[in-house]
């Protein structure tokens, strides 16, 4: 995936530990409106495993994981 989607809100959770990028995303999803797209910047490799897991369990849409220098941008859309 090279074309990066436009996000409604970008959370910079790089270099953070617990509660960590996933907690930041869950909080953002709760605050967001249905249809909004949220990007999370994370340098924690666990996020690339945990965020897609949570997104599918919670019924939202993983738009993509975009690798950058030393971190990834994980983009999720609120579906319900």
């Amino acid at each position, binding site marked *: 995936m090279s074309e990066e989607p436009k996000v409604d809100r970008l959370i910079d*959770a790089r*270099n*953070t*530990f*617990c*509660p*960590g*990028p*996933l*907690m*930041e995303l*869950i*909080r953002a*999803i*709760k*605050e967001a409106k249905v249809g909004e797209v949220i990007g999370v910047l994370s340098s924690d490799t*666990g996020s690339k495993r*945990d965020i897609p*897991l*949570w997104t599918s*369990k*919670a*019924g939202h849409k993983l738009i993509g994981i975009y690798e950058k220098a030393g971190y990834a941008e994980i983009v999720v859309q609120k579906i319900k």
Partner: protein
Amino acid sequence: MSKKIVIVGGGPAGTIVANLLTKKLKKEEASVTVIDKTGRHVYEPGLLYVTLSDQDPKGIVKDEKDILNKKVRLIVDEATKIDTKRKMVEMKSGNRFDYDYLIIATGARLCPEEVPGLKEAAYHFYTVDEALKLKDALEKFDKGKIVIGVGGVPYKCPPAPAEIACFLDYKLRKRKTRDKVEIHYLSPLPRIFPIESVDPIVNKIFEKEGIKYTTFFNVESVDPKRKEVHSLEGETIGYDLLILIPPHRGSKVIEDSGLGDRGGWVPTDRYTLKVKGYDDVYAIGDATDLPISKSGAAAHYEAKVVANNIASEIKGIESRDKYNGKVVCLCDAGNKAIYMIILQSPLVPDGSIVC
């Protein structure tokens, strides 16, 4: 001319920064004022012991004036508006205080109303009154299912819910009622404990003691009639007694002054602890939007950085400190163990990752 330093909030963050500033600065250099709406200081880690041991609440609540350095002026009043243009704080009483430096240390606010049904149905232990109510309910509870979780993220002291689950297990065993009580823990994360490297230890205790758990359970609503909790992820769990920590937001004055993000947290520079966009306003403790554990320990370390930097600026000293993301956390699992967790978030590029 003597600078006016105003601190809003007299919790650990506000109290520590005020005391450090009065130690570092002479009267001719600065006056230090703390504004707190209650004038009482609660040692929150003690709430666990109010709930499950014989800790007298009087032992964990102190008069703020008794723990502040005598040189600090304490104003017991509620700040209702922070006006950063006019550099002043407005009070409920109508009084106003202008400042040269403002430190926001207003902590977190509990908002049970954000989760439908939570207020009517759930107990918690995050205030003295609620800890006493829960203590009473637990003393009467001798059979059934206790469900423990959090109503939202972020919440202060991330290990506290898992801690109370272990502590409760110990307490019920001592009372010899553990075989009639099921303890079920709800975690918003894919694991029990927020810190990945500590999770295996907590997991072992849960497995050994038969504490059940469900992961990825972010509470959406509570149905008090059916005694059920529903999750954002679509699951439902029944309970007889429910312990749910209410969702947190930043203080109302932050929202009313337009200084917060969507959760009412103050956007704060992670190194300088200045409120983003300002040179004379700082934020420390639970009030900030920093993605680290909301804890007294973080508040303490942040207070040191801000006190040093404001004092240096007033004295005309060039050097500035940076917050390094340090947090320390003690977890008491009843008779099982006390764990000390030291975290250093790599907020500075050369820091080391612990979790």
